């Protein structure tokens, strides 16, 4: 038993493990880069790096084929920490190496935290438009909004998971249950053929779905395409069913209905993240090199306001010059509609400072180490002379 533990310890602290893990990471990065052609950046990150095990589909069966990014990164961290603890011997001559490795450990932890905690949204603003929310690129929510109060709207946002599991959702804020009859992670809307009607698996009795039908499509991972989910939901009140609706990200407007003496709006949409401040696009500029159509610069002149009036200022966002405010970073990401709409990428990453600190610590450690060696070398030469 003791021997097995010793063997395990020797393995954890060994340089061989480091080399093997580095080789594994090289293979992982190579394969993931090649697979990016099929899946796109986001799906590749999820499949190869933000996972413990990489699965490949063989027919209909998922087979574990390779350790994922979390496993390799975690073991590297363990290896590094283990080796340091096991071989620790205080020596001021090695202080620089200690700092460099501490920086490396911080970098690995920072990357793990970024992977787990970073949120990415986007905000589309037409010129003159004001918004106080950003939207997710991929996450979906079923938003049921009580619009009865003249002063505010109350939103109940149901995330995608219960929809996918076709759950029946009961919430204290809703005077009805939401029964998910069908959920298509990617779908295509079409008109219901007048002579047909029974082709649809779910009979829709309310709203746009009485004329439109959603058909399931395979999920797309292409960079220039997005999945458009749709769902059939039945609302069930204390007196019985209120009807079945088709909701879809591809439908433009929320569908309105009354229940429990209140007025409601329902929409399937990309998840929104509301903010305690609002942004107005004053002007989007797209400069080109004179006489050509080659883009030179993109910038959005934004007005940032808070309801309490504490902040009311203009900000210029352009490439590599994002707006950092309230823990969020707004990057210039794109534009639409003949240069009158701007698309800002909104990133929340509480651990964004860690890589900068880690790089600083590594640089300091390396400089210190080289400095110590240089001083030693110079004094040795002086002594010899």
């Amino acid at each position, binding site marked *: 038993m003791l021997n097995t533990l010793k063997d395990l310890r020797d393995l954890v602290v060994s340089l061989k493990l480091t080399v093997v893990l580095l080789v594994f990471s090289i293979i992982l990065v190579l394969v993931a880069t090649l697979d990016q052609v099929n899946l796109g950046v986001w799906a590749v990150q999820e499949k190869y790096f933000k996972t413990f095990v990489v699965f490949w589909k063989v027919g209909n069966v998922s087979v574990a084929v390779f350790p994922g990014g979390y496993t390799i990164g*975690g073991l590297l*961290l*363990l290896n590094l920490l283990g080796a340091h603890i096991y071989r620790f011997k205080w020596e001021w001559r090695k202080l620089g190496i200690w700092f460099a490795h501490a920086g490396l450990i911080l970098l690995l932890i920072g990357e*793990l*935290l970024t992977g*787990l*905690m970073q949120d990415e949204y*986007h905000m589309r603003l037409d010129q003159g438009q004001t918004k106080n929310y950003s939207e997710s690129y991929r*996450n979906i*929510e079923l938003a049921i*909004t009580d619009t009865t109060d003249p*002063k*505010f*709207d*109350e*939103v*109940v*946002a*149901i*995330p995608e*998971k219960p929809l996918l599991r076709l759950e029946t*959702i009961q919430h204290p*804020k809703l005077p009805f249950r939401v029964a998910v009859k069908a959920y298509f992670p990617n779908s*295509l*809307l*079409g*008109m219901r*053929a*007048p*002579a*047909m009607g029974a*082709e649809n698996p779910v009979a829709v009795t309310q709203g746009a779905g009485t*004329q*439109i039908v959603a*058909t399931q*499509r395979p999920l797309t991972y292409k960079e*220039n*395409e*997005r999945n*458009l989910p749709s769902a059939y939901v039945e609302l069930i009140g204390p007196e019985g069913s209120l009807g079945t609706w088709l909701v879809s*990200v*591809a*439908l*433009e*407007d929320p569908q309105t209905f009354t229940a429990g003496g209140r007025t409601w709006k329902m929409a399937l949409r990309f*998840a929104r993240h509301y903010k305690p401040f609002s942004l107005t696009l004053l002007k989007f500029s797209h400069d*080109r090199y*004179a*006489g050509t*159509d*080659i*883009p030179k610069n*993109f910038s959005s002149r934004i007005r940032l306001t808070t309801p309490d009036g504490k902040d009311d200022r203009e900000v210029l966002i352009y490439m590599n010059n994002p707006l950092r405010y309230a823990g969020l970073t707004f990057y210039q*990401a*794109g*534009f*639409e*509609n*003949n240069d009158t709409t701007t*698309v800002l990428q909104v990133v929340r990453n509480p651990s964004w400072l860690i890589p900068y600190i880690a790089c600083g610590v590594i640089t300091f450690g390396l400089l210190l180490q080289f400095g110590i060696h240089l001083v030693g070398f110079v004094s040795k030469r002086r002594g010899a002379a």
Partner: protein
Amino acid sequence: MRLHPLGLLLTLPLLLGACRDSKVAVYRIPKEIDTPVPAASPHAGMAGGGDMSGGDGAVARADGPGLSWTVPAGWQSKGPSGVRKDTLVVAPDAELAVTAFPGDVGGELANINRWRGQLQVAPIGEGELDGSVTRLDVNGLKVGVVDIAGGSTDKPARMLGAFVPVGGATWFFKLIGPDTVVAGEKAKFLAFLQTLKADASTAAFGSAHGSAGEPPPPAAAPTAPADMANTEVIKAEGPGLRWTAPAHWESRPAAAMRKATYAVPNPAGAAGDLSITAFPGDVGGEVANLNRWRNQLQLPPLAPGEVEGTVTRLAVHGLNLTVADYTGGPAGAPVRMLGAIVPFAGSTWFFKLTGPVDLVAKEKPAFEAFLQTLSAP
């Protein structure tokens, strides 16, 4: 079992991460007024070439037959490059670029405003269009010419632009440079435009909608019968297609998702239904859309290679139409469908007439004539 502190350290963030996004959220927001936002398109984010990589976003080049011209003395041709059909060096700091793209590239107004934007001049409205375009008739070609002065105050620039619709494509001639240089070349530019000629093959081909290898489109459908109502119906916010519906079709209120609905009366039974819808992007592509229709009629799907035999391709006022005619449905009550798919300005428009077989057969000429009235604004 004792949990090692290191293990705890490693698993804690994972546990934290697992809790996210699985709870129903409730929050209050200030009263929202629903603004008509464009529906999500299956094409990620950057509709209309809005990514950071390209200027105009137009990547499709019009291939096939086109225009020919004579280069004036003093100008030098650099030949085709990239998306340019030709580049003529007018002066050391002024160039004339010749490009051609399929379709109308968003229409005259959009193109002129794009040019005005490049010279930092405010866009014009529909009403000001006629005042700012000089129309020329050159060897049977309809040439529109604009003269835009702009740029910064210390570096005034000028652009002489001409656009020429030729067989389903639009050709652009753009001379841009310092104000004084371009103004001095204006007479020569106008003389140059007078040398434009459609290639002999263009006239015979009639459309640049496909590559030269494709068969020419079928003979034109019958011209609009006399009973066409003259009321023009314009649907859709922003740029939309226009059409004239036959007088005997009854316009119905446009329901959700539909740009327009017409009931086609049938004295012998159930009425036919003509629906007009438009969705952003290519909605999955031509084959997927045709197969969706076939599925509605309980017909087996077609492989991409089989589509050609079942559709007719038409070019109408610069628009490329794919017309399908399918009969299917349940054995007891067969249904026939005439459908047209029309890509236009980044969206796809669908015109679909469905109804009993006899009615649709009778209405086919009217439907074809109706398609011939389609035009871009």
